[in-house]
């Protein structure tokens, strides 16, 4: 009998999941969802964040960071393209919500698909000319794109320039679930649902053809192309899906914050989201979720030390990356096919 290494959380989790029968898996999934769903009620416990309200912190930054990190992970982790302008898609989603929400009668749920469509369109338009580039060159171009989007909204009259857009409507109530500023539990559940949808999407794609194509591109793009993988097409898909998730996050963010301005969409956001991905474990969904949760939550948890908190934040990053250079939960390197038997995933 093999001795399990309980300290290796990734392999422990993966093997537990694989050895579990279907009912057990469903039970694990349901219990986890309920537990995470109950998080906003933990505001009185040790988890509480001083100054900021706990359920607000769970929505932004924690939930939003997780969502955006998962989106960026499709691009950076799955297909190996370094994107430093991810905030652009977040901004496009947010400004779509802000402008349509304040000028038309459309509500958040009606604007959501429009915002996603705009972000995806931007992804395709940016992707077609630039995704022929690789590595550092792609990073610079995407960085430029992120800055261009910010400068455009900063200097345009339709986006109200540096003043930003105020009075963005909240989402309409979902039956008995009311969206309120003071009580953001419902926002949290919406973010949670979006996160679960994103995870479902990534997992579906990973075990099938697109996942293999991305993996091949990440490891050796020329070999992939010569083995018949239409690399540009799959890179654009990857970029566009990442953009869609970023756009969706942006729409919800604008509708939650009620006010947006260009200064919210700086390069810093792109870098921070990238840090979440790398910190958690580039390419591993659960690593990214954990990484983004910690990096989103920590600064608010230690807000009582005010000025020193960014120092602590930086120290944590440096120390963890030193001891776990591949992130908290690194990408799986087990000797097991990612293709499921019968592929009835």
């Amino acid at each position, binding site marked *: 009998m093999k001795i399990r290494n309980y300290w290796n959380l990734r392999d422990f989790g993966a093997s537990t999941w694989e050895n579990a029968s279907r009912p057990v898996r469903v039970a694990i999934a349901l219990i986890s969802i309920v537990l995470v769903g109950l998080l906003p009620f933990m505001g009185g416990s040790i988890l509480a964040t001083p100054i900021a309200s706990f359920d607000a912190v769970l929505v932004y930054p924690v939930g939003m960071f997780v969502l955006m990190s998962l989106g960026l992970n499709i691009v950076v982790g799955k297909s190996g393209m370094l994107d430093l302008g991810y905030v652009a898609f977040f901004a496009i989603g947010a400004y779509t919500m802000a402008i349509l929400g304040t000028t038309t009668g459309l509500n958040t749920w009606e604007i959501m698909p429009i915002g996603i469509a705009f972000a995806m369109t931007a992804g395709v338009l940016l992707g077609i000319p630039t995704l022929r580039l690789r590595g550092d060159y792609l990073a610079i171009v995407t960085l430029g794109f992120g800055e261009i989007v910010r400068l455009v909204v900063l200097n345009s009259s339709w986006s109200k320039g540096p003043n930003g857009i105020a009075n963005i409507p909240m989402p309409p109530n979902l039956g008995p679930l009311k969206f309120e500023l003071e009580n953001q539990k419902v926002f949290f559940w919406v973010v949670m649902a979006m996160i679960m949808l994103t995870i479902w*999407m990534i997992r579906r794609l990973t075990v099938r053809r697109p996942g293999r194509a991305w993996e091949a591109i990440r490891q050796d793009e020329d070999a992939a192309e010569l083995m018949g993988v239409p690399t540009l097409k799959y890179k654009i898909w990857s970029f566009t899906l990442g953009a869609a998730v970023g756009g969706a996050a942006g729409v919800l963010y604008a509708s939650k914050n009620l006010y947006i301005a260009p200064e919210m969409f700086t390069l810093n956001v792109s870098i921070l989201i990238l840090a979440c991905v790398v910190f958690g474990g580039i390419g591993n969904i659960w690593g990214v979720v954990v990484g983004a949760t910690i990096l989103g939550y920590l600064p608010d948890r230690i807000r009582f030390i005010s000025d020193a908190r960014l120092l602590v934040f930086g120290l944590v990053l440096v120390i963890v990356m030193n001891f776990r250079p591949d992130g908290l939960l690194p990408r799986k390197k087990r000797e097991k096919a990612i293709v499921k038997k019968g592929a009835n995933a």
Partner: protein
Amino acid sequence: MAKIGKTLLKLDNVTMKFGGVTALNGVNLEVKEGEILALIGPNGAGKTTVFNVITGVYKQTSGIVDFDGTSLGSQKRYQVTGLGVARTFQNIRLWGDMTALENVITATDVHKKSGLVGALFGLPRARREEVENRARAMEILRFIGIDEYSDRLAKNLPYGVQRRLEIARALGTSPKLVLLDEPAAGFNPAEKVELAATIKKVRDAGYTVLLIEHDMSLIMGISDRVVVLDFGTKIADDIPSVVQNDPRVIEAYLGVPADAS
């Protein structure tokens, strides 16, 4: 011996220049269906350049590359593979973090129609193709004789198995023509004998093989025809026993004797 058929690949007066360097100078080459054609020549003769021109890595400066009635000049690399040309690499270029089986499955995807939407929603065609691909890939690993390694990561495989996996991956694309770039590099004599048997088996299964190799005993043993390149020019094209005794070939490999000049 398999039956040699019609011309499958034809290079007509192909020239490839890199700046001032002429890597290929008016090369004519014909590969016929069902044969094993060996491409040999001293280092720097342009052998790998021929492969790169055929597979679309380089665009030839002039000349025509015709594969089974289609001009390869304007095709993208993955389209060339889709038409039925697959290759291996001189330096192993497997996807190291994928298992052996996944490497081959990824190659089998080339002829499949289902894409992202099918994968996302688990449409019937996508699911059926996953099952087909998996079965086909396993079959190929068995054919090449490395199925016991199917669940091992490619980078952890023994060197010889990696070389064979490269061939398996190329076959995964269901090619008509397989280009093997020094498949025996780094092999000991016993492994070379085994590889020769594998290459023959590949040909007998209906694939056409174009082979770059340095090992003369391997080439003389399995090839139906040998083409010799030297400084980008074809200097011989005949059956192995004739090429072996061609004075120009001997000269290209050994240099001209001092007293003959």
